[in-house]
């Protein structure tokens, strides 16, 4: 199968406008005849559901949460980028486009990124009109701050709760459509599989998390907005329930998985404290605006930070990257922290931590200003660690945070499984090999508010869809498959908890397919993952039945998919014999330890096709063309 990204012809700045003109429209009276299922109620899912319903489609929106306000978009702290250029510092759609392509280390699709930059300005208008309480200047206009990977201030924010406020904006827009009857909202239902009829995605099978009932939901098109797979590492900044199941099961039904090895490690998280740890807490990257990162110059220096004099500190980001300093992109900052710790200069009880110090900023701006900017983050830090960051530097360490990889989609956000659209973090499309800070919120909302609602009409207008119901053989077969899998899990009746296997897999993935990778380690992971999977299917223990609220079953079902998915990640990381963005192959680095790309051989999107559990998936390549941004060594020096 040849991948066709369906990128419109013409100059990049006209592609989206022209495409919107060229695609098929459905007249308003006919839209109500089409039904669309949206899975997930994060920024992408909620904004898409609300907008599709406003347009007149029948929408059925499914979430496994108890409420559509809980999705993990809510935890994004720092902000959302937009090329508004309100600060008059030279920003433009073109610059945001350029920064995003460069930040992604030249592994994203130019046309998608340009469109993202274009609609970024509409998002801020939309959110503001919804009442999202963005930070304001005294004159009443919106305030901006700067973020990693950019030399302009283009980030809009609502204290340290930007994700929460944008999600509540989308949640409220969705609530409006639920009230109007346009959206049927189903809560506490987990998508277990996709129903495919005549090669087209026509519905999903869900498990009701309260009663255990398996239900069939049918539609003319299915949209997955189910987030990323960062929890493959067990410890990550993701919420506990974040998982790969929806996208992985779509992959097994024919959607290609693109660039799974591009996983972002966030540089500013609270370090691990013990074995029982269930998650890592992120401290917003915006802290790097005013905090200075350092480690002691001497190895094994166990003095308190206040006892280490200025000339014995290594502000390593400022030293290595003088022009971006503490605001260097995430991958660079993360790896530099790892290097310092691997070199024996890490701080804290485990030696896996670096300081993020606000002393100078407090002296320069005063405690009140710092409190206004970061007050809630400082409180959160103190609550978790017991340390007060106004008085002693924070300790931070990188953690898995975001996954740039995801289901492959074309320019219309449709996967290789016809009729299946994928939006937000769940798709692969805009961030290349590395996502810049404050760009996840932007992409989720761009897809949901401004891209998918247009492009899905193009599919629906042309699709030939036969009438189906729950008794259609394909529907019954899918329900049966799900049922069998649940029974199989319960019948293992082993001795170890689902979390035991998740933790074991996570540790392997972090060590071998984590921040830095090499051929031997990846091959080792490919040998070990099937062993853990085999052990899981022999020895996992689930308590209770499938016909009740069952937390061990939910967890086991998600872990089972991670145990298969982890292999594609390792295959992808092994295939990509170069370093690019967040994918760092130790074999490919410059003498000073920077990622070294190989544009001649690896300037492609790797899209993997399912070939059976434990089988090597088949690689398909989408060549990336850079006509507007010149391929260059990404330098932040």
């Amino acid at each position, binding site marked *: 199968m040849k991948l066709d990204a369906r990128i419109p012809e013409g100059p990049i700045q006209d592609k989206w406008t022209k495409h919107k003109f060229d695609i098929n429209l459905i007249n308003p009276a006919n839209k109500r005849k089409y039904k669309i299922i949206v899975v997930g109620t994060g920024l992408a899912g909620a*904004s898409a559901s609300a907008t599709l319903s*406003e347009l007149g489609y029948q929408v059925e929106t499914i979430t496994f*949460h*108890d*409420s559509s*306000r*809980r999705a*993990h978009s*809510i*935890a994004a702290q720092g902000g959302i980028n937009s090329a*508004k250029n309100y600060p008059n510092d030279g920003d433009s759609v073109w610059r945001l486009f350029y920064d995003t392509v460069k930040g992604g280390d030249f592994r994203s699709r130019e046309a998608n990124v340009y469109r993202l930059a274009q609609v970024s300005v*509409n998002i801020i*208008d*939309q959110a*503001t*009109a*919804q*009442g999202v*309480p*963005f930070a*304001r*200047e*005294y*004159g*009443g*206009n919106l305030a901006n701050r700067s973020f990693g990977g950019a030399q302009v201030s283009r980030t809009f924010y*609502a*204290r340290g*709760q930007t994700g*929460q406020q944008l999600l509540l904006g989308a949640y*409220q*827009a969705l*609530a*409006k459509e*639920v*009230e109007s009857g346009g959206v049927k909202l189903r809560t506490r239902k987990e998508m277990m599989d996709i129903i495919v009829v005549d090669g087209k995605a026509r519905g999903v099978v869900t498990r009701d998390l*309260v009663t255990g009932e398996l239900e069939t939901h049918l539609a003319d098109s299915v949209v997955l907005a189910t987030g990323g797979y960062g929890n493959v590492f067990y410890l990550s900044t993701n*919420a506990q329930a974040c998982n790969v199941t929806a996208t992985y099961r779509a992959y097994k039904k024919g959607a290609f998985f693109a660039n799974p090895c591009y996983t972002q490690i966030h540089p500013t998280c609270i370090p691990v404290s*013990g074995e*029982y740890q*269930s*998650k890592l807490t992120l401290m917003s990257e915006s802290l790097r605006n005013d905090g200075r990162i350092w480690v002691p110059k001497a190895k094994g220096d166990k003095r308190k930070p206040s006892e280490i004099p200025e000339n014995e500190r290594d502000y390593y980001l400022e030293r290595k990257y003088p022009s971006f300093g503490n605001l260097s992109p995430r991958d660079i900052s993360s790896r530099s922290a790892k290097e310092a710790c691997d070199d024996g200069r890490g701080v804290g009880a485990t030696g896996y931590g670096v300081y993020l110090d606000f002393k100078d900023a407090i002296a320069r701006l005063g405690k009140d200003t710092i409190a206004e900017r970061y007050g809630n983050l400082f*409180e*959160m830090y103190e*609550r978790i660690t*017991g340390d007060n960051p106004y008085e002693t530097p924070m300790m931070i360490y990188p953690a898995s945070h975001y996954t740039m990889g995801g289901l492959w989609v074309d320019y219309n956000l449709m996967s290789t499984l016809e009729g299946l659209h994928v939006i937000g973090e769940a798709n692969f499309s805009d961030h290349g090999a590395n996502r810049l800070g404050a760009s996840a919120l932007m992409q989720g909302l761009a897809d949901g508010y*401004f891209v998918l*609602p247009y492009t899905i009409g193009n599919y629906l207008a042309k699709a030939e869809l036969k009438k189906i119901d729950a008794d259609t053989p394909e529907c019954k077969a899918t329900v049966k498959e799900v049922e069998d899998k649940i029974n199989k899990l319960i019948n293992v009746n082993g*001795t*170890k*908890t*689902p*979390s035991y296997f998740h933790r074991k897999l996570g540790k392997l993935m972090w060590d071998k397919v984590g921040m830095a990778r090499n051929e031997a380690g990846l091959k080792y992971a490919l040998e070990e993952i099937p062993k853990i999977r085999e052990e899981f299917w022999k020895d996992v*223990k*689930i*308590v*209770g039945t499938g016909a*009740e609220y069952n*937390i*061990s079953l939910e967890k086991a079902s998600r872990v089972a998919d991670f145990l298969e998915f982890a292999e594609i990640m390792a295959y992808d990381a092994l295939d990509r014999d170069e370093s690019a963005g967040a994918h760092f192959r130790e074999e490919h680095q410059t003498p000073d330890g920077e990622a070294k790309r190989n544009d001649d051989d690896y300037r492609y999107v790797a899209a993997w096709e399912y070939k059976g559990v434990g089988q090597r998936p088949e690689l398909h390549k989408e060549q990336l063309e850079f006509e507007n941004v010149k391929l260059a060594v990404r330098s932040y020096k």
Partner: protein
Amino acid sequence: MNLKLHIWRQKNNKTNGAFEQYAVSDISEDMSFLEMLDVLNEDLIVEGKDPVAFDHDCREGICGSCSMTINGNPHGPEKATTACQLHMRKFKDGQEIYIEPFRNNSFPVIRDLVVDRSALDRIIQSGGYISIKTGSAPDANDIPVPKSKADVAMDAAACIGCGACVAACPNGAAMLFTSAKLKHLNVLPQGQAEKKKRTIAMVEQMDKEGFGSCTNHYECEAACPKSISVEFISEMNFEYAKARATAYRD
């Protein structure tokens, strides 16, 4: 540290529940409260016993999923802290801890500590939004918002929808929750067009869900993990009366 836990166990909303006792040992003070429950659950699963069901997700105090009452306090003893952000260093070795679901007639128990809080969503659906269709917004800076108003809107919008205010209220009122959303939207220039309609609809939906009324105990503010102010409640009452009294004009 070692602790004695009394946890509310209830199979579903058709059966009665009761407290059961559990002992946990070697609990580190750096654990979060939910990590302590994870440790218990891991042991229970291995023993073939039903693990304790509780709602939780982000574990960083923002998603509003966690909903347990710890020793009589929704989210536990620490001020302005969700259960997931509560750490064991706040407890003493040998302490007895009672853990139960958020209690309210409008929050039926689903299982153990998990309750159904969809009544709060229905309050939002009744009018807790600004009706602006995607694509129809003016330029963001066309609507200047005084910083003081933006700040108070943010104070109110910080609500995470956990329902601790309801669980804490002796009357089972959802007025802190409802008034916070009303304040967030009603204070902004963007929210003016629908102000009266919104106020009436949300207050009436709140009553319809069976929540009680405020009699100034202020337990809600004390329990709120985001310290939302009870001042919003008096303002809601005032705005509701005003909207009702002048509704004939619209």
